[in-house]
């Protein structure tokens, strides 16, 4: 079957199978930041935006994305680099495998709630698993980034 959708604001037409998952389709389309970390919709690594909302691309049919706007980390270069530097600064990550899903969902949080409390940060990011760290470095990185955004006067 044929679908037509927007990937990082580029219109794409493609043929898919009825059970192609969005994650596999996006990888075929060259979005290699989108990765799979589990089989149970639990880890958050495959997070992409569908019509601006963060969703698990491993659990959505590509067929359902027909007519919708998808954004991956490839489409958020500037935001990702700015924020990513703060995470790297804390040496938060070890293997880094969890990074793309974490970046996507953190950016979703900044957009939805530019001034979150620590508990709000924990709650928003609780669906992003990291198996190397204890999340403390990520927390410090997020808070340092938010402080920088506040100082800049703008919002995250």
């Amino acid at each position, binding site marked *: *079957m044929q679908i037509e959708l927007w990937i990082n604001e580029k219109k794409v037409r493609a043929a898919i199978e*009825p*059970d192609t998952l969005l994650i596999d389709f996006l990888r075929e389309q060259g979005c290699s930041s989108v990765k799979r970390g589990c*089989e*149970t*919709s*639990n880890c*958050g690594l495959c*997070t992409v935006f*569908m019509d601006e*909302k*963060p*969703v*698990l691309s491993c*659990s*959505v*049919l590509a*067929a*359902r994305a*027909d007519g919708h706007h998808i954004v991956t980390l490839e489409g958020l270069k500037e935001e990702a680099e700015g924020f990513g530097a703060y995470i790297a600064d804390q040496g938060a990550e070890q293997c880094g495998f969890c990074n793309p899903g974490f970046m996507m*969902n953190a950016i*979703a*949080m900044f957009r939805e709630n530019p001034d979150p409390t620590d508990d709000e940060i924990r*709650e*928003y*990011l*609780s*669906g*992003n698993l990291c198996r190397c760290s204890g999340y403390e470095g990520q927390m410090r990185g997020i808070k340092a980034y938010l402080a920088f955004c506040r100082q800049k006067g703008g919002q995250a």
Partner: protein
Amino acid sequence: MIEIQNYVRAESLAQAYELNQKKSSAIIGGMLWLKMEKKRVATAIDLSGLGLDMIEETPEEYRIGAMVTLRQIETHTGLNALTDGAARESVRHIVGVQFRNLATVGGSIFGRYGFSDVLTFFMAADARVELYHGGIVSLEEFAGMPHDRDILVRILVPKTKGHMVYLSQRNTQTDFPVLTCCAAKRGEAVCCVIGARPMPAVCVRDGDGILAGGIREESAVAFGRYVRERVTTGTNLRGSGEYRSILVEVLTKRALLGILEREGEAERAD
């Protein structure tokens, strides 16, 4: 992983219902549960084009479409004001935001899962389900009905004023609950719904009038015992039946005391 041979975005409920009469068909909600089942689906029926992704409000009730996501339930101002935030509390521990942006109310209720936070909350909210073929039935009744090939269209939540408290016990954040408990008081009527027993949620009412003189520390303790005696619990990986029974008593008491506190707050605010 499921295999799908044919995908149809339904154009009407009538079409969806007709297609769903075949045993090899399946309605696709958020697909999170379905995806983990090993099965072959000849026709996957997607309800996402039918405008069922909205929470509508009438003077009497909230009408929640089957394709409304758990995240919409979590963030809906009116529904949370009506339920003292129990709506949000019942779903916020479910996996993560990205998951709740996909998981649907329809899939969560139709499945009548033995671990369900969602079923527990809506039953305590005195919800009814609107089925395409079966019409409108109370959720309490629906929870015990055999699984057939009908389509859940909406959940209807009456706007009866009252107080609600939702509690769940989890071994670890974002895991399935070991037990869920949601108490509600509307007028003088109190009910307590216990879920994740691990069996579908059940509702216990104050048949003996334990709370007739109002909720107090002693009556809350007594009602906790009363609910424990009436709710069957079972054992699975997350906890034993015995442990769950203790939780039934404790969480019921705490939920009632939570309601007492809210009554006090509401009085002071008046």
